[in-house]
């Protein structure tokens, strides 16, 4: 392929059109000058880096590498603070297993959003078991993209809320590398490095990242136990890419192989604190949590091919992900009698009430396990997953005078599976140390769930003068199987075939070069897992949005009102929501919540002021208001719901969230501050569950970051997360109150070559 063609239809152009949608239109519609600009950006990206007004309907937010580096965050929760319409339930403080929802859907394990890495579904088993126990390490990402609204229909299977795409580092166009060394509070350390280059169309990249910390919580009597004495983690990521660009005539092609490996061990638990103990020391962990250990390993293979001409772009991806995990943690007490059994959530919610005192004393190590009911069940949820498939996306541009079409279509053949091998061991609390009470091991769940899915979408964006109208449809055709693998349960199986079409339509009207208004509607859908009986309905909704956008090159603003009309809100039982259903053997059982309305307003504005000739003041404000209500009464045993009356609100959905960021930026230094306010959140929707009427309080967290660039000698950075050392209960799930991350200081040195 000639160099001129390579420049004109570069890898970034190629990649920008991948997975497609409006980005393909945006790129194709731009002049060659912008194409050159795009050439310098990351490869596998959906949203273009244009500085002009984006004309797609639907909320789409891009956080680029520069923005990501500003605060050097490892935690996706903090990164998404600048994205409107995101609701989050924090858990471990480090964001190891995020809980992210968009526009009011449950944030539990991010299971209702489509999570992608480089445009490919990255959840362990997105159809069969969508809970994101694997989440890519965001420290190695170069961009994060969030899609909500009608554009979600291109990123299934979950279209109710939206999609989150993270872009890994692309193969650099010339030899370059970087090393980043960071140290921080609680023995935090980071070593991040990459090197890559390209010559005559052949490129490569090697990237490694190691992070570790001792954790900011202290485990009672851990040093006397046989388990790790700290509450920290240890993570490794390794990624290699090989790329090849070639072509002839006006056709360019791009081939890229990505191989990646990641692992993590973290001494994490689901057990938090009582409110009283939280008041005394929010960073305490009870003796029963000594056993906590998450251990996972992830392997990834991805082969990407793109072929592009002036009007057509086709990208094909072949992918395979393996994920294996085992999480050992205290699940609860041995069952003795229905009248006296208590979940950990019940014990911690009211430790002084009734029999709970007996259990609380054992959890905290004040009392030894003497009777059967005082023995603790420590579950290891051992699971193996794979997710594989091939997907092809194409865009085709046709013009007729003032009329232009961008036709986008895609097909994906996907298969994923989860195999569960859960078991429980019995432990006794002995002198405040967790010890095995017997060698018996009970296998609680042994089964697999498998899904084979074919997805298609087709969309036409018609542009005529100042008006753009987009109409499209997504089809999901899923064949699934559940099989119990326990001996004697061979006939416990279920096969299902589900077919659904999900339409979406949107329009954008450009008022001027800098402003436009848009509206859209689309069908939302979340499939049921293979194990769920056909009577359990998939989640379905009709989603509307109306908004306006402004971008004059300096100031960007977007205001979107949305209304999600759920015909059936769905939830599922997991240990992370609370154990009462899980302990009763109903893990992964799904619940119908019926009709629910979620509505809100998302606003964001960002700009930059010039203080002097060399110093700017960049600033941004992001605000989200969300309201919700159940439209029908419901008596549910699901811990997040309970007995719901008409008008009750959806839990973990703050009415108001506000993030203000501002700073000073010069050529060689910058200082940034981010202030995030999160309103009160209900921990349960209705009555008669252990957290009924309980809320997390509104809280504000302030992060400060600064960096100085020594040019040829690298740069240094320092940051303080939670500079005011605000202590807040971020949630009382899975069991008991959990703290936000305390004040932590980090310093680092980064050298690029």
């Amino acid at each position, binding site marked *: 392929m000639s160099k001129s063609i390579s420049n004109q239809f570069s890898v970034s152009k190629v990649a920008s059109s991948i997975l497609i949608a409006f980005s393909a239109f945006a790129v194709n519609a731009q002049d060659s000058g912008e194409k050159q600009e795009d050439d310098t950006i990351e490869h596998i990206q959906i949203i273009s880096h244009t500085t002009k007004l984006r004309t797609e309907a639907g909320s789409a937010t891009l956080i680029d590498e520069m923005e990501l580096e500003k605060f050097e965050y490892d935690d996706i929760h903090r990164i998404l603070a600048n994205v409107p319409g995101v609701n989050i339930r924090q858990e471990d403080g480090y964001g190891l297993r995020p809980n992210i929802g968009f526009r009011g859907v449950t944030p539990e394990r991010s299971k209702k959003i489509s999570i992608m890495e480089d445009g490919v579904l990255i959840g362990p088993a997105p159809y069969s078991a969508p809970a994101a126990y694997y989440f890519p390490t965001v420290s190695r990402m170069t961009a994060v993209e969030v899609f909500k609204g009608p554009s979600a229909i291109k990123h299934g299977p979950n279209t109710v809320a939206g999609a989150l795409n993270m872009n890994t580092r692309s193969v650099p166009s010339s030899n370059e590398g970087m090393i980043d060394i960071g140290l921080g509070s609680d023995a935090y350390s980071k070593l991040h490095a990459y090197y890559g280059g390209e010559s005559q169309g052949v490129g490569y990249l090697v990237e490694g990242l190691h992070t570790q910390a001792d954790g900011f919580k202290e485990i009672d009597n851990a040093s006397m136990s046989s388990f790790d004495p700290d509450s920290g983690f240890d993570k490794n990521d390794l990624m290699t890419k090989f790329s090849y660009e070639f072509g002839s005539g006006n056709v360019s092609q791009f081939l890229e192989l990505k191989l990646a490996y990641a692992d993590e061990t973290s001494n994490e638990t689901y057990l938090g604190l009582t409110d009283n103990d939280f008041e005394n020391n929010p960073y305490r962990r009870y003796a029963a949590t000594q056993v906590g250990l998450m251990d996972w390993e992830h392997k990834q293979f991805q082969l990407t091919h793109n072929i592009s001409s002036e009007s057509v772009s086709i990208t094909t991806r072949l992918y395979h992900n393996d994920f294996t995990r085992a999480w050992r943690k205290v699940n609860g007490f041995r*069952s003795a009698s229905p*009248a006296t059994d208590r979940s950990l959530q019940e014990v911690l919610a009211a430790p002084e009430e009734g029999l709970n005192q007996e259990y609380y004393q054992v959890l905290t190590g004040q009392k030894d396990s003497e009777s059967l009911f005082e023995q603790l069940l420590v579950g290891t949820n051992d699971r193996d997953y794979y997710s594989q498939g091939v997907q092809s996306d194409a865009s085709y541009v046709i013009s007729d005078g003032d009329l232009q*079409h961008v036709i986008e279509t895609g097909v994906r053949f996907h298969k994923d599976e989860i195999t569960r091998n859960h078991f429980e061991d*019995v432990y006794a609390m002995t002198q405040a140390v967790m010890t095995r009470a*017997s060698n018996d091991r009970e296998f609680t769940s042994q089964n697999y769930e498998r899904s084979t899915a074919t997805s298609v979408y087709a969309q036409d964006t018609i542009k005529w003068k100042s008006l753009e109208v987009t109409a499209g*449809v997504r089809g999901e055709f899923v064949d699934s199987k559940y099989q119990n693998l326990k001996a004697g349960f061979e006939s416990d*199986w279920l096969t299902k075939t*589900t077919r659904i079409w999900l339409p979406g339509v949107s329009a954008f009207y450009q008022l001027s070069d800098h402003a436009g208004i848009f509206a859209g509607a689309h069908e939302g859908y979340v499939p049921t897992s293979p194990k769920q009986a056909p009577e359990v309905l998939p989640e379905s909704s009709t989603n509307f949005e109306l908004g306006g956008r402004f971008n004059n090159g300096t100031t960007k603003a977007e205001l979107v009102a949305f209304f999600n009309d759920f015909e059936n809100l769905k939830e599922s039982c997991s240990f992370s929501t609370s154990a009462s259903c899980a302990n*009763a053997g109903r893990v992964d059982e799904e619940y119908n919540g019926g009709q629910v309305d979620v509505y809100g307003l998302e606003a964001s504005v960002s700009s930059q002021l010039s203080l002097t000739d060399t110093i700017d003041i960049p600033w941004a404000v992001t605000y989200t208001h969300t309201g919700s209500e159940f439209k029908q009464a419901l008596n549910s045993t699901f811990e997040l719901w309970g007995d719901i009356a008409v008008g009750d609100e959806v839990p973990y959905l703050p009415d108001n969230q506000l993030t203000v960021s501002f700073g000073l930026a010069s050529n060689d230094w910058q200082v940034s501050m981010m202030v995030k306010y999160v309103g009160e959140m209900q921990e349960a929707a209705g009555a008669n569950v252990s957290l009924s009427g309980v809320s997390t309080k509104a809280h504000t967290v302030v992060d400060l970051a600064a960096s100085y660039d020594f040019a040829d000698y690298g740069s240094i950075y320092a940051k303080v997360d939670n500079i005011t050392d605000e202590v807040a209960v971020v949630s009382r799930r899975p069991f008991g109150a959990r703290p936000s991350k305390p004040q932590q200081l980090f310093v680092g040195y980064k050298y690029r070559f």
Partner: protein
Amino acid sequence: MKHISKSTLLTLVTTSTLLVSGCGESTSSSAGESFNQGSDSSNSGGDQTLVFDKATFLSDITDHVLIPTYKSFESLAMEQAQAINTFCAAQISNSAELTAQKESAQMSWRQAMNQWQQIEVMQVGPLTSDSNALRNKIYSWPVTNQCAVDQDVGHYENGSINGAAYDITRRTETRKGLDALEYLLFAPNANHSCSNASLAPSGWNDRPESERLVARCEFAVEVANDLVINASSLVSQWQDGYAANIKSAGSQSSDFGSQEEAINHISDAIFYIDSVTKDAKVAAPVGLKDNSCGSAACIADIESNMSNNALANVENNLVGLSKLFLGNAVDAADEDKKIGFDDFLVAVDAGDEADQMIAKLIAAIEISQALQAQGTTMQDAVQNNPQSVQELHQNIKNVTDELKSVFISNLALQLPATSAGDND
């Protein structure tokens, strides 16, 4: 750029519009026979149950089984309080009648306990609300704490806790109820049961035995009186509203959305016989299930260990089940028999299954009675004749297997989650 005609454009727009309007979801499935423990509605006798008068069933169970059993317990609790009061007076005065009065108090406890054991399989409504608080105030086994009872003997004797007047109604369930009374009436000596002397009332074991026994019996009087209040509360809650609530299931005035929901609430209570009677009371002590001794025979896990009432407890659990199943009767020929679950089965053409259930129930009751007639205690049997306990277990299992089968297949009832799988 390629030229397109207006007609092409129209086609595209029209197609898109059709696609938008043509959405829909369809699901088809097939399942193995054990999927969801075979609870698929197609396997159940759902429609057949319509011929059964569920309103009368609920009314009869309420008026002829539940409330009479609760009332009977209330009476026995009152008698027990009187007997313990008399015994304590004898203890204080060191009367010559002390031994006889103590035996009388112990006997009154056994009678109350036996009646309560029937109620254990009738934990419905007020006994299940607020995390079974009322049930646990009356009887919290298997969560018991003899050291905690010792502590409250001391607190009651002092009249205060941390400066506040002692109030038994505010104390943890393990410090009162029938389980506390058993300890206070049957403990072999006056020493405390705490693992560490610092947990017991100060200097307890050094005090004169008579003083300690008086302190214990005075607290026993307080516990017995509290028990009467709770027993009366149970009866009054039923009479003052809950009976009407369950009888009117399915109407606007009821908390139960349907009669089936109310019946399922009662059947949930019945499955106590599976997870507690069969597993916790029989299988665990004899080592058929994991226990606190590590699967070996385990005396510590036997219910009512001090009073040696364990076998009577099991028998009365089965009797309680019989009353619910047969309608206030332990035999189908009983002339006082009212409508029960057996009639429900007959109504759905499962009379044979009802007969089998009755036969298995009678067999299990007879085994437990035979063991008691031999003068055997559960402790003796577990240690010296484990085969007899295993036989009892097998007979109870015959009952629970039948229950699981008929309740799912014939009555379209849902099993409680703890009994849904095979716990054996």
